[in-house]
């Protein structure tokens, strides 16, 4: 089962490699990983998408929490939460009909065309992993996908709950 593990950690050199190390050393899966400093620049927030049974997820949260640089760990999938991922996708748009079809799908998915070229469009889309997957597959049916880049998921708990030091 897919899990979203959110980690609050010191924004210190080596902290990220220690977390990634726990996953590789102990054989846990990383499906995606997204990390950046928080509003408080001394802290970083990291979101890992992983999968495994309850026992493995429990070990992951414990082992990550054990790292000295880590302040807090939460499994967002345990409660209601918001998750978002951003994708930039470049498609070939050589004919008028392809351009029209790509534009139509972009509108349907509430995505945005952010770069236009003689022969291609680059589109930005935000949403859940599933939405991005669906958009990518829809575009693939009407146009040639040249390349795409995804940020990995980031997420927050809904309501009052928050990951704070």
């Amino acid at each position, binding site marked *: 089962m897919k899990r979203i593990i959110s980690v609050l*950690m*010191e924004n210190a*050199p*080596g902290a990220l*490699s*220690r977390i990634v*190390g726990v996953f590789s*050393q102990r054989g846990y899966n990383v499906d995606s990983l997204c990390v950046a400093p928080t509003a408080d620049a001394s802290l970083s927030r990291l979101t890992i998408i992983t999968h495994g049974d309850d*026992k493995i997820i*429990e*070990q992951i949260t*414990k*082992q990550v*929490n*054990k*790292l*000295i*640089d*880590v*302040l807090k760990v939460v499994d967002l999938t345990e409660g209601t939460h918001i998750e978002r991922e951003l994708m930039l996708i470049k498609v070939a748009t050589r004919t008028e009909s392809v351009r029209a079809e790509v534009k139509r799908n972009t509108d349907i998915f509430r995505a945005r065309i952010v770069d236009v070229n003689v022969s291609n469009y680059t589109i930005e889309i935000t949403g859940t992993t599933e939405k991005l997957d669906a958009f990518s597959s829809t575009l693939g049916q009407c146009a040639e996908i040249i390349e795409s880049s995804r940020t990995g998921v980031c997420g927050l708990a809904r309501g009052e709950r928050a990951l704070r*030091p």
Partner: protein
Amino acid sequence: MKMMSGAAMVVEALKDVGVTHVFGYPGGAVLDIYDALFAQDAVKHVLVRHEQAAAHMADGYARATGQTGTVLATSGPGATNTITGIATAYMDSIPMVILSGQVPSMHIGEDAFQETDMVGCSRPIVKHSFLVKRAVDIPEAIAKAYYIANTGRPGPVVVDLPKDLVNVQDEHAYHFPEKIALRSYNPTLKGHPKQIKKAVASLVKAQRPVLYVGGGSVASEASAQVIALAERLQAPVTCTLMGLGAFPGTHDQFVGMLGMHGTLEANKAMHNADCIIALGARFDDRVTNNVSKFCPHADIIHVDIDPASISKTVNAHIPVVGAVDKVLDQMLSYLKQHDLADQSSKVAEWWEQINQWRSRQCLNYTDSAETIKPQKVIQSLYKHTHGDAYVSSDVGQHQMFAALYYPYKKPRQWINSGGLGTMGFGLPAAMGVQFAHPDALSVVVTGDGSIQMNIQELSTCLQYNLPIKIISLNNRALGMVRQWQDMNYQGRHSHSYMDSMPDFVRLAEAYGHVGIRVTHPDELEDAMQRCFSYTDRLVFMDIEVDQNEHVYPMQIKFGAMDDMRLSKTERT
């Protein structure tokens, strides 16, 4: 505010931490630190012959005292040589700080001479590490390193020091932090009261309780509490390989070590228990055997300072996160509210059963008039040291014999590489013990394989005049490997036989020590007597033991805890 060089800061910070001994080896990247060490005598430096041994010495020092051991190594090969020692300490949760030299900051990443990414190399086997970026940060990094190493679940911490930071020319303001506080690190010491109550209720209800005592009981100095709880509940106690001594091996309620080479009564008691309280033990695979068949009738209470240890391999019914000593204090005080007047009748049947298992006398072995049995050597060692020696062990059959046939009375008396199983650990560990306790008797139990993995330290022993006693069980083979080959590979002894063995007596003499060879059972007692009569010399006892002896009891793979071989021909 004192002004001093980075190198002087390193030494000053060690003094402020209270470090007495540094085990190390000089080299290019740490020459400035060595120069600063030269100018003082508060911190004693021990010059080893190999950095791996420096780490084991610091480890032995730490295990014998509970104080953090300190290692100093140069960059590159000096640092990487400590890796096995760091991994050994990590697996057994031993507090250690490793100060490693690093190439100058501006050359990091250029593949400079003797450059290694030490922080990267050691990352999976340290509790934490620091790559110091500014000289003024040195005191704080060192203070934090020692704080982290010896609080919570202890472990090794690396401090990597680029050479340009410690040069003796540039001076910086020295400020040693009075108190260390880390917002991201606050180990839980006291148990949650609700969990304590649940645990006590379960223990009081139990008719077949067992105390399963691990290395965490040694680390948290919880011996007195363990004894108090055991006596209050009148429960049998078993210790892991790491926990030996935390409960006296001579106590009536001690049923011996448990696990792969545990006693029949310990493993039987575990398997049949209705309540097990694990005290700083981690349900290691060498204890549980097949986890799916592990202790089917027991409520499991797991006390551990590391939440990640709880329910890692075996599910705990009542997890208690906290230091063993603190949690047991809480439990004992809560137990006072319980009437345990009928406790002895409640556990009477249990003891009857245990005594029946005990009567099998699983540690009995067939003695011989022709060849020396290794078990007999350990029993003789116990007699000649009155059970009071610090015994450091290497890894293999001799380690198991030393664990089973020498009842340890006190914690920190038994020093061995339990988790990693590092051959070559014994001699340097015993040296660390001797530095920590100069007047105590420090003994190594080793074998002809293990001793050759750090034998160069005999030279260090002479330099510092360490009167260690080396009891080498020489069976001309890698005994434990051979035993497994006998059992699982139809006796094909692939590369477990050591040809061209050195003459250990002459080797010891060449290093300036006393060597004694014993080949016949009749000579053993006199030889032991002679060995311990040399109070100020290192003695190397090269004892020729039976090559075909196996360690028993031994759990049968994939079985339950109590599925065991009791000899070459008998099983449970």
